[in-house]
């Protein structure tokens, strides 16, 4: 028991300690300062030359967004073609067929959106070729996209008065070459050492101890898993994600993979501090996020380790905690920790079945995704926090008797309109989606029984979780839901597109608009955003606006579930 808690604490410490230097390094990379990774520069120049990019062009926010959306569209089409045609392409030793158009559409959208809501199983649904040149490639690209967007915002907030917010292509390329690649390489090597396969051979047939024959899938898993974690992608190589013994062989790899989920999102907060030379602001934001993350861990770990009251009542010992849906080699505490880590970010990889966790853990997982800015996805998580920051700045600015300003720029009606819409979108898509499916389930009980393993409160939780996960671009699921139907494919697909691109466009636009404004020097009357009071204010705004709007839904889902079982 205590060892398990120690493991959780150790992991927490490793994250907090290492994110600070990584943040400093990332800031240096985006600033174009000298770093140890400068040996990548020739490779980057080569990329620019091939793609016809002029790395010296400074874009305004509209050009920046155009580039971002264009690159996404291009890779989307690329992915569609490869997935449909994968049956005829090389590196397909298992002879898996091409995906249908609708399935390919869903796969492409969900991987482009950094969500990785997988409605297929990696072992049968993809070839090695598409695993590498669609899945892995997208996992790099979408993570880099998010990071580049944040770099653009940081650049916009740094300038005194400027129209230019930086070059999207440069930010994106550097995110891959200087941050994602080196880290993925390191994690990949460690995984291979611990037994994760990295080969292009087909399935292996083994004779088990019982004498049965078992077919084991393998492939270039160690190449994909690191970026799946680091880029907050979460789409596993194998169908059951990191609970698969080849994807996550032992306690060390479990810790490593869990660390990899959160390290970049955490580091991005400090990158902001170093980039803007506002370390105190970074510490304040980090403090709020870390507090919320840690509170979630404490609740979830204690719930999972505590086990189930019903089983307790039956007189069955639960020394290991609630073990339903969990791997024995990982244990309940590490599973709970992973559950929190994967939902505060937009990762969505799992090492246990979230559907089987205790109701309050499930609720915390949903809350994390419903708030979607406690560290969040790489780059985009902080950007979501930024939207709330703008709202908090606005209200607190008024409270001290001044037109609100953030980092020396006035926050006015246009920015408020965008920030409000961005913040509004999240509860909108989640609640409307869940309402739609609930409504269908009520009026067509047959549909309900086809979709859901569980009726009533837990059934509602399963639907709520699915939309929450899609809207947060998370990709994990309460797998009790049979989600590979037209309804779920299409509705979650729409949610995915809206929740990925709409906020990015909005947040970059806010930063771009702020950048164009006149810089106002700080005075004694200026609201300071790097204080404990303001951090508390931001937390309260997020809690009341984001969390409490889900309170009625959660009361009928996990809370009722918890109180009635």
């Amino acid at each position: 028991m205590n060892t398990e808690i120690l493991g959780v604490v150790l992991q927490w410490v490793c994250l907090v300690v290492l994110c600070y230097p990584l943040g400093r390094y990332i800031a240096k990379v985006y600033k174009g300062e000298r770093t140890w990774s400068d040996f990548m520069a020739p490779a980057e120049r080569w990329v620019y030359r091939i793609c016809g990019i002029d790395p010296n062009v400074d874009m305004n926010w509209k050009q920046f967004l155009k580039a971002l959306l264009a690159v996404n569209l291009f890779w989307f089409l690329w992915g569609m073609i490869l997935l449909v045609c994968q049956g005829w392409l090389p590196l397909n030793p298992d002879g898996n067929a091409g995906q249908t158009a609708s399935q390919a559409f869903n796969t492409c959208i969900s991987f482009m959106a950094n969500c990785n809501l997988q409605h297929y199983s990696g072992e049968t649904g993809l070839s090695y070729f598409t695993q590498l040149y669609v899945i892995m490639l997208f996992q790099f690209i979408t993570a880099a996209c998010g990071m580049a967007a944040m770099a653009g915002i940081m650049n916009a907030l740094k300038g005194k008065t400027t129209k230019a917010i930086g070059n999207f292509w440069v930010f994106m390329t550097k995110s891959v070459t200087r941050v994602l690649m080196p880290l993925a390489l390191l994690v990949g090597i460690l995984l291979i050492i611990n037994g994760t396969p990295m080969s292009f051979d087909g399935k292996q047939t083994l004779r088990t101890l019982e004498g049965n024959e078992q077919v084991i899938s393998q492939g270039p898993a160690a190449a994909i898993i690191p970026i799946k974690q680091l880029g907050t992608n979460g789409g596993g190589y194998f169908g059951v994600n990191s609970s698969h013994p080849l994807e996550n062989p032992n306690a060390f790899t479990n810790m490593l993979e869990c660390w990899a989920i959160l390290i970049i999102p955490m580091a991005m907060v400090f990158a902001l501090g170093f980039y803007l030379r506002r370390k105190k602001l970074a510490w304040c934001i980090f403090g709020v996020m870390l507090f919320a993350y840690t509170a979630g861990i404490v609740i979830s770990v204690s719930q999972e380790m505590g086990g189930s009251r019903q089983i307790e009542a039956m007189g069955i010992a639960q020394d290991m905690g609630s073990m339903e849906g969990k791997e024995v080699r990982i244990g309940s505490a590490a599973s709970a920790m992973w559950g929190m880590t994967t939902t505060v970010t937009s990762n969505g990889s799992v090492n246990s079945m979230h559907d089987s966790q205790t109701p309050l853990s499930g609720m915390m997982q949903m809350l994390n995704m419903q708030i979607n800015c406690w560290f969040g996805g790489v780059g985009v998580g902080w950007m979501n926090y930024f939207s709330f920051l703008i709202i908090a700045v606005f209200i607190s600015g008024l409270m001290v008797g001044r037109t609100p300003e953030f980092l020396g720029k006035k926050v006015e009606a246009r920015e408020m309109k965008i920030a409000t819409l961005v913040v509004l979108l999240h509860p909108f898509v989640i609640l409307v989606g869940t309402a739609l499916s609930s409504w269908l389930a009520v009026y067509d009980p047959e549909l309900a029984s086809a979709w859901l393993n569980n009726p009533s409160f837990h059934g509602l939780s399963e639907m709520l979780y699915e939309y929450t996960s899609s809207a947060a671009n998370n990709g994990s699921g309460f797998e009790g839901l049979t989600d590979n139907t037209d309804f779920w494919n299409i509705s979650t697909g729409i949610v995915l597109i809206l929740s990925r691109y709409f906020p990015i466009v909005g947040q970059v636009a806010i930063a771009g608009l702020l950048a164009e404004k006149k810089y106002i020097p700080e005075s004694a009357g200026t609201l300071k955003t790097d204080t404990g009071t303001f951090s508390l204010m931001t937390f309260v705004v997020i809690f009341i606006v984001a969390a409490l709007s889900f309170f009625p839904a959660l009361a009928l889902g996990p809370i009722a579930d918890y109180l009635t079982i």
Partner: protein
Amino acid sequence: MKKDINHSLFNAGLIKESLYESFRKLDPGKMIKNPIMFTVEIVTAVMLALLVYIVVSGDESQGSLAYNFIVFVVLFATLLFANFAEAIAEARGRAQADSLRKTREETPAKRIDRNGQVRVVSSSELCQGDVFECVAGDTVAADGEIIEGLASIDESAITGESAPVIREAGGDKSSVTGGTKVLSDRILVKVTARPGESFLDKMIAMVEGASRQKTPNEIALTILLSGFTLVFVIVCVTLKPFADYVGANITIAAFISLFVCLIPTTIGGLLSAIGIAGMDRALRANVITKSGKAVETAGDIDTLLLDKTGTITIGNRKATKFWALNGCEVQKFVRLCVLSSIADETPEGKSIVELGREKNVLIGSADKDGAKMIRFTAETKCSGVDMPDGRRIRKGAFEAIRKLVETAGNVFSPEVEKIVRKISQNGGTPLVVCENERVVGVIELQDIIKTGIRERFERLRKMGVKTVMVTGDNPLTAKYIAEKAGVDDFIAEAKPEDKMEYIRREQQAGKLVAMMGDGTNDAPALAQADVGVAMNSGTQAAKEAGNMVDLDNDPTKLIEIVEIGKQLLMTRGTLTTFSIANDVAKYFAIVPALFIASIPSLQVLNIMHLHSPESAILSTVIFNAVIIPLLIPLALRGVTYKPIGASALLRRNLFIYGLGGIVAPFVGIKLIDMIISVFF
């Protein structure tokens, strides 16, 4: 006039008028301007329809008729309360404006026709450009500019100041305001604004709400609040299928109550009242603002340009010391000084005579006989007297006298320079005196710094406002006074262009600048400044250029204006926080009440232990409604501004209105529930 309204926030007449107005404001066409309260109106209409349905069909599956009726009444009251808040703010503004307007009702005007004939017409017939005559005892019929003559005028009707002021043609004191009274002499006035279109009339219209436009901050806040409202529309609408799915039955009244309680009705209902009250407070301080935006901008001011004279120092300088040159007998020197000033009507001249009297130097009328007074001219820059015995006594600025002395071929003693520097370093102004083009000594004039001004500047500094003193003095004197008064910066030997230049420079650095001025040459700077306050006594050009007019002609008014602006923003911010913080308790009151009937185990969430689902819902909507009128006084008076630095201010307001906003409804709802539970 200033005081009598301050005392009664509400008086019977105003309340009656406002109550009537609150019903008139229910017109959906008017309500739609306030999106939050408009949604309340819609759901109230739905409740009404439900009531009709229950009465007609007798179907009580949606709760009893009495229960639904109470919910409807409370919602309707919420609407009325919000309208009442706006109405009373408007009524108070109107009352204030009316008392100003009384002074400008129909007055006869003696219009001078083109052929020079005087015809008595009504003031309302005057057009811009018309000329009318006023003699002692007449009331000035319209705002205008004196084109001929000089008169003493009683402006107490506008400013409340009883001492009459002198207004004369030409220069910076040529403007007269309609409604003031001419006490002596005769003036010809050219009408500059048609009656009904003067600043005051524009202001009155603004306070009355007819032409009030939302300010930028108000628009941004409305967007945010509408966003919140939309979130709660979604939360409540989607709850229906959720509840259906898990088999919980929720009545329409419960849905509507949840919605109305969650949306920010408190701030939504008070928002426009706060804005009107802000302009009203400015008017109460006798400042006419051309727009609500100007008041709001005043709260953001970073730099304040203040004229030294009248603002920092008491009007005029006073002679404080006679410095006789070596070789000149003191008593004789003092006598010369007094002689030179005997016919000098300027305050400086008078103070020299006074100081001489203290030194026992008295000049009889005999001495004055035959003496020829030399007036100050811009050319000579000195004044004095030519005595019958041929002595020429002159006093003037250092440079002017030096020129005079050196032209006459006399030696200018270096000792004079020494004294002059000494005086300047002490913040004094030297006035060199010479007799027959030979310097005999120097008179020291000192500025008297107003008492309490240092503390006011300290207060401004804590607000984050930089104060800049503008003066025509030399840099040495300016520096001394600046330090003594505690201003942050100064512009010495200031010309109107310097002011302009300074304002531009500050604005380029991203700062907002406020200034006050009265002269025509101030007009460009007044227009350039973000907040330009023109004195009512100033020229028409100055008044047109600025965005506020101070009726009291009080230069320290700027400080008050900044505070009014800050108060306006703060009141909005704190009430928004309060309103949103209220939601925490409301969730815990209503959400359990919605589901307890179908899911009894959710009783755990009923942390307030409210009596029954019905009483919980009723007490929450009642609290939600009642809080609006309870906060009206705060909205009208404004949250008190304390210059304690932004972070401390945030902490303080967050504690009072944030924490208070979370706790108050827990207490309030529980209390109301205890009362209701007696009946239900």
